[in-house]
């Protein structure tokens, strides 16, 4: 069973900078959760605490009911894959790809050697190359290979795609989803490429300046808005008075993204006006929700 994660009043400071402020949320486990936030919002700090890279000086964190920090039962079961150059594949590291994989194999209780081999081939990673000679994208590919093949019950990817080209990124998303379906576990994806991973997410946590902005099921979140498409005039009539997140126009056709749940009556009104209502993109919601807070920055 995939362990759940409880974060209670988590507070973290670096000198005078507050990275996390009384953060509280819980993940039931066994889901793919997106951790979204702007630069400097505290995503990496939060993941670092979950991965026991730093203690939680204020508040508490539990994984599967146990505090993870320096806990030999929990730490091997949590795999943190940071952005390339920060973790298993440091740009200054002269060890070889084979050695990095051997270390992961020796420390991760559920390491799958065959799957690691499959990923190496898919990403075209050379076993005998030194990490320092790999490109950023290749180092990222190695990191995600380790993250996936470790099959850790809690896997944390922190912008792990950095430098990977579109082919490699989509290969990663495909492998992530396939492997998650085969061996369900708790996966947290911290990313700025919300459009690309939006469809993978079952749960979304948004933080801003170290505070929790939102924690919702992805489906519920998507229902918080709609994309209304149709003749420009009819769209404008329908969306008058609503919170508009964005507009696109092609000739006489207009697509307007609105925020806020639409009840049955409004949906019928849209239908009657010849408008189509589609799901809102997660990225539009994210931009809107974090923009709302911008004024208070």
């Amino acid at each position, binding site marked *: 069973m995939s362990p759940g994660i409880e974060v209670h009043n988590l507070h973290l400071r670096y000198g005078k900078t507050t990275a996390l402020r009384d953060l509280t949320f819980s993940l039931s486990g066994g889901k793919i959760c997106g951790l979204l936030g702007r630069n400097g919002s505290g995503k*990496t700090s939060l993941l*670092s605490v979950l*991965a*026991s*890279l*730093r*203690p939680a000086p204020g508040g508490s964190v539990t994984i599967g009911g146990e505090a993870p*920090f*320096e*806990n*030999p039962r929990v*730490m*091997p*079961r*949590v*795999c*943190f894959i*940071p952005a390339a150059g*920060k*973790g*298993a594949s440091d740009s200054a590291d002269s060890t070889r790809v084979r050695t990095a994989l051997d*270390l*992961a*194999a*020796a*420390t*991760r*209780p*559920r*390491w*799958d*050697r*065959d799957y690691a081999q499959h990923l190496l081939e898919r990403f075209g990673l050379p076993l005998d190359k030194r990490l320092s000679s790999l490109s950023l994208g290749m180092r990222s590919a190695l990191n995600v290979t380790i993250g996936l093949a470790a*099959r*850790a019950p809690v896997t944390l990817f922190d912008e792990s795609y950095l430098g990977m080209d579109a082919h490699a990124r989509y290969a990663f998303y495909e492998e992530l989803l396939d492997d998650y379906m085969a061996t369900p576990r708790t996966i947290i994806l911290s990313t700025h490429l919300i459009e690309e991973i939006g469809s993978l997410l079952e749960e979304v946590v948004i933080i801003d300046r170290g505070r929790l902005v939102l924690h919702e099921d992805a489906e519920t979140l998507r229902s918080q808005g709609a994309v209304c498409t149709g003749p420009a005039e009819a769209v404008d009539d329908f969306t008058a008075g609503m919170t508009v997140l964005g507009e696109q126009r092609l000739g006489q056709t207009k697509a307007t993204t609105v925020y806020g749940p639409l009840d049955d009556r409004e949906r019928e009104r849209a239908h009657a006006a010849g408008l189509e209502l589609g799901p809102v993109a997660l990225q539009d919601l994210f931009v809107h929700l974090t923009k709302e807070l911008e004024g208070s920055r």
Partner: protein
Amino acid sequence: MTTPPIRPERLVFRRLLWLALLPMGYVVFMGAVNMIVFTAVRPAAIGDNLLMWFVHNPMWVCFTIGVLLTTFFLKRYVMQGVTRRQFLTAATAVAVVAAVGTLLVVAVALALYSPMLRPEELSLLVSPMGETASLDAVTGSLIAANALLGYVAALFVGALMGAGFYRFGVWRGLLVLPVALLPLLVAELSLWNPIPDEAGSLQLLDVGALAFGYGLPLSAATLLLAWAVNYLLTRDIPIRL
């Protein structure tokens, strides 16, 4: 297919064991170089050179290994789920193996060299200040104890300094220096340092009395202190990304 993991302490120990070979390799390498130089030109102060090359210089290799432990290797293992405590246990074992192994290699090297030395050169080896001394069992064991404590001290001091700089950064890390250097100074000064006698000339301390009196326990105590401070600094050290 999954691979069952071994105990993390054992795993880290095995994977870091090559570090312990570095000071030993240094002694073997310098021994070979010295042998060539010795047989070719036979320098006058060969005993002093031997002492420096074999007994003292490996301390700097040990020191470097100590610095690397935290600054380079800790992150790699913690990122893979090894606790800091497990890493420290393994690193301490590696340090002990490095120190004992180096001592044994040094002993073999000196044993090989001793028959090649003239009596005055041998006395220089035993007593750097030129006192007449013979390499008897007591003196030999004191040299060995000194060297062993020196190697362990260098390893622990390096680890402590590495942990201090890693944790606190450059400037605040400097504050760790006095505590960090203490064991090395004590290991050097209490067992080895020449002091002026009543006539004002330098001579070796009565190393036998000092070593078995308070020098050895004092040195051991400062080593434990360095280890304990290193443990306190490292047990919750934040890993830098």
